[in-house]
């Protein structure tokens, strides 16, 4: 009996060691980008499933139950749906108004436009927000089926929220600007100082690649500079705050918690294939695409 117990115990220990080693190897193998990329579909499908189980991707119930009708719950649900739609619409108007104000200031001071803020996008509800130790991200209930593009930019009333890193059919995972692994090229609205901002442990942004001589103005607005081709120029990032180590950025997206994000298409840097230069070798002239030739996708 005792011998049988010992064998059983040995087997259990062996199983434990095997499962543990397999888990460790699985994590180590995923450090290879190829393996990590191959697991992406699994993650995006899990995100879709998560969105569905959270109930936000489901169509609202059209025929409430008798009990719900008696208790007036159906009417309340209808009002909530209307209000949610109104909030989505208003948040779009607010974002447009803010960007127009920023553009107007730029026109007045420089007499030329610096950039064109994106106008179109899809407003999605935030299903879950993850501020855990691995990464700071959120899951939105809109994906490729709703027209969200890979690498789309997420905005809220406060400004830039992050960038879509995993795009599913009905869900999109957004890496927040507060994450350590996010990098945004920025510039001070007044000072014009350029730098790169990334998220830090305390929720504020830390700046790198700052010029030695220039400094931000306390409280000035920090905008995306558009360099690097990931984010367009002029999106609100935060405000500059002086600290003991230099300058930090207080992200304005954290000031508002509406529960919605607007997912706008990313900036695309055209490749040579997008804008081919046709050469007439005999004449030696450039044959540029004429007006009738379809241009590159914007």
């Amino acid at each position, binding site marked *: 009996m005792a011998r049988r*117990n010992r064998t*059983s*115990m040995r087997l*259990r*220990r062996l*199983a*434990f060691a095997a*499962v*543990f080693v*397999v*888990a*460790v190897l*699985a*994590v180590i193998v*995923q*450090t290879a980008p190829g393996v*990590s990329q191959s*697991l992406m579909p*699994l*993650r995006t499908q*899990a*995100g879709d499933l*998560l969105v569905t*189980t*959270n109930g936000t991707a489901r169509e609202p119930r059209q025929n409430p139950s008798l009990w719900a009708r008696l208790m007036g719950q159906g009417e309340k649900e209808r009002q909530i749906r209307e209000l949610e739609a109104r909030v989505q619409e208003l948040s779009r108007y607010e974002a447009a108004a803010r960007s127009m104000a920023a553009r107007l200031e730029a026109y007045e001071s420089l007499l030329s436009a610096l950039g064109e803020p994106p106008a179109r996008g899809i407003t999605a*509800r*935030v*299903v*879950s*927000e*993850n*501020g*855990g*130790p*691995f*990464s700071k*991200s959120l899951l939105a209930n809109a994906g490729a089926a709703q027209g969200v593009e890979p690498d789309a930019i997420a905005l809220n009333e406060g400004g830039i929220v992050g960038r879509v890193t*995993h795009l599913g059919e009905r869900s999109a*995972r957004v890496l927040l600007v507060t994450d*350590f*692994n996010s990098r945004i090229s920025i510039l001070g609205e007044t000072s014009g100082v350029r730098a790169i901002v990334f998220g830090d*442990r*305390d929720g504020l942004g830390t700046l790198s690649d700052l010029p030695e001589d220039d400094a931000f103005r306390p409280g000035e607005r920090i905008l995306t500079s558009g360099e690097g081709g990931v984010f367009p120029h002029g999106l609100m990032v935060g405000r500059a705050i002086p600290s003991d180590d230099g300058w930090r950025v207080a992200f304005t997206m954290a000031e508002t*918690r509406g*529960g919605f994000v607007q997912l706008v298409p990313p900036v695309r840097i055209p490749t040579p294939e997008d804008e081919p230069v046709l050469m007439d070798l005999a004449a030696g002239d450039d044959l540029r695409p004429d007006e009738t030739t379809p241009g590159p996708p914007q």
Partner: protein
Amino acid sequence: MNRRRQESNLARIWRRTGPTTRLIVGSVLVALVWWVGLRSDSALGTSLPWPLALLCAAVGWGRVGLAIRPMAALLALGLLYDISAAAPLGSHAIIALATYGFHAAMGSALDFDRDPILSSIRPIISLALGFGLLWFVASSASGHAAAVWPMIASFLTTSAAYLVLKAPLNLGERPVSASGGM
């Protein structure tokens, strides 16, 4: 009076429940806490440090020693946590299994159950090890040292949650040997 009788009935039913049913009930509870935690920020409008119920399960199930089915359950639940936390697949399984193994090994090495002080310290030590490992794995995976304070806050809420989840996560007494099993 009725309520007390109901509670005692529930306790009696739970006492008679086998380890497999207990494991299923415990897994459902852990998944439920995980699911509510996913929505806690947007639904409750607060960034409450949510308890890591997976570690509660690792400690609760590790109390009776090593067994195959709890390991499989921890592996499956760990994958749920990995997907929601955008962590490398297997990370939470490593953390949960290490905590589970450590808690089981502590139980077989020392007789904690006879001493009430040691018995209450044992889960805290195991949870602390789990969170230490979580910090290490998260820091290694993300390429920078993870924030410590949110993790301490989560450790405190997890310890509090363990007090509540302790009973449903108990797989029963060790049947034969000191090492136990299902």
